[in-house]
């Protein structure tokens, strides 16, 4: 601690940035959530009406629960689908070039716009979509499965497809870093493949899972586009609520939803970081 002044000088760009673009907006959002909202205007008179309305209304509180449910499902499915892919890329592909090529392949869908990626699911999942036609042609089903599109299921399918790559990347990175000699060492000590997976690979890849989970969580909790495009506006997430409230100039109410969303996210991220000490692991 030789030069306190110098330290602060070096820290200042970061501090200024975070204060201006993170702390100040957050405080502002919390502040606005207590303002008094009338039909077309908002006044800085403190009240808890918006908060009471949010938690006493089935529509809004239900949206919160639905958001958490869909987020949790998407998170679990991305782990279940993403882990084997990451394991394959990280452990079974020894060639580094091929490893990189496969990871790049995972992000190819991102070369098109978000909306196209989401809307592309409609002709796949629809009543007369590709999946239904295929299953009918193969004689597996007689009538088209209607639950595939404009339901919570279609929202989950769409989200998993979009966000699974954010799970694959960090896990593949962590698994790729596991030294082959550890696995050989475990094998020489008499461990079977399954034991090596459970006792060595799985715990060592946990930081990747945590980072992936944080990525997916932050993106899914703030989602609104996939939900409205693939559910036919039937599935309302907290993100959709914010959009409609802002659209009808209900700033206080939108701020309440925003604060709730931020708290849910922050709680989850905090729990995750407690489980795995990322600083030690990365």
């Amino acid at each position, binding site marked *: 601690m030789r030069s306190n002044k110098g330290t602060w000088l070096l820290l200042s760009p970061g501090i200024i940035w975070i204060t201006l673009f993170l702390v100040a907006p957050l405080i502002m959002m919390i502040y606005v959530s207590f303002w008094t909202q009338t039909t077309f205007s908002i006044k800085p008179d403190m009240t808890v009406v918006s908060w009471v309305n949010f938690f006493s209304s089935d529509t809004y509180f239900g949206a919160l629960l639905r958001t958490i449910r869909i987020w949790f499902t998407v998170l679990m499915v991305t782990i279940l689908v993403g882990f084997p892919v990451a394991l394959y890329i990280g452990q079974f592909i020894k060639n580094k070039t091929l490893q990189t090529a496969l990871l790049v392949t995972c992000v190819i869908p991102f070369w098109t716009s978000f909306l196209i990626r989401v809307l592309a699911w409609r002709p796949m999942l629809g009543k007369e979509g590709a999946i239904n036609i295929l299953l009918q042609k193969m004689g597996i089903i007689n009538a088209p499965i209607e639950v595939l599109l404009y339901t919570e299921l279609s929202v989950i399918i769409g989200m998993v497809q979009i966000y699974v790559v954010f799970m694959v990347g960090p896990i593949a990175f962590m698994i790729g870093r596991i030294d082959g000699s550890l696995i050989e*060492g*475990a*094998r*020489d*000590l008499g461990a079977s493949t399954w*034991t090596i997976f459970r*006792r060595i690979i799985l715990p060592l890849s946990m930081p990747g899972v945590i980072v992936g989970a944080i990525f997916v969580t932050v993106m899914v909790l703030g989602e609104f586009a996939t939900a409205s495009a693939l559910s036919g506006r039937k599935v309302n997430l907290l993100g959709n609520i914010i959009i409609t409230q802002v659209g009808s100039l209900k700033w206080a109410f939108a701020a309440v939803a925003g604060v709730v969303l931020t708290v849910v996210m922050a709680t989850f991220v905090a729990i995750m970081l407690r489980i795995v000490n990322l600083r030690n692991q990365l």
Partner: protein
Amino acid sequence: MLEVKAVSKNFSGVSAVEDVSFTVNENEYVTLLGSSGSGKSVLLRLIAGLLTPDEGDVFLNGTPITDLPCHERRIGFVQQKYALFPHLNVYDNIAFGLRHRVIDPVKDESIIRKKVQNTIELVGLVGQETKMTGQISGGQKQRVSLARTLVTEPKICLLDEPLGALDANLRERMTIELQNIRRELGVSFMHVTGNEFEALAMGQNMLVMSDGRIVQQGAPQDMYARPQDLITAKSMHNFNIFSGDDLSAQLKAGTSDKLPATKLKDAHFCAIPMDKIDISDASAKTSGLSAEFLTSEFLGNKIIYFFKIENGDVCEVENHMSLRERRELKANATYQLHWKSKDILYYGENKQLLG
């Protein structure tokens, strides 16, 4: 007892291990000396079951284990890089094999605790049990790696350059400790190294490997005094190797003794120990091989002088301080080198010792 019979291994057409056969007896310390790229690590991996030989077989106590997967062989393998599990502490690293092995895992934690504690005492890691592997020193990591293998009571323990990453002091201490640990457990060790001193000091039996082949095996003292193979002689780093068309002229110049005529005729190479060469001034009356002094290296208890002889080869002369006073030589000045006939080893065209 471990028997390796005619084992070969290729990697995409390039031979790494070729027709290797040897035996490690019960309760024996065997060292395998080889330079990097000689195939010694591949050989260990073939024995451990981390690689499968293209040809040949490995037997453990008379039973073929060539087709047995690594985790069913019960051969301990202490890796060069230690390969400790970074998410487990020292205790759990050592207990890993007992807890999680396929054959006969130990379920009773009290037995595990007893065995792990005994091994921890044996390798001198008392008090380190709860530390993570990132918090301990290189020497301690090496001990954990050894303990982790020994606690599973392997039938034979393979050590891949176990002292390679340790500093000189620690290495010297570990050479003695490794031998003590082995003696106490009565298990056979096969220790692979690129360091000739380590190989000589530790092995009851010693193998020298070069280009994927075992070129010589035997007791370390014989290996050092009379290497049967020129490659062994080179790997001892104790011999000046003379060769070329003027070989006999060079040898004759360095001695007034009568040299054995038949050996001299058949010899393509000769080896003279570095510490068996004398230096005299160019003006001295006695005849000697003329050589230009290049530089010297002071090593505490000895000094090594480097000379360039007429054909351009470098000749090293080792002077032990206990035997002779240190001489100050002038750089680029010419001196004469002498030896005795009895110290010369003769090698034929096939690089094997003559007579």
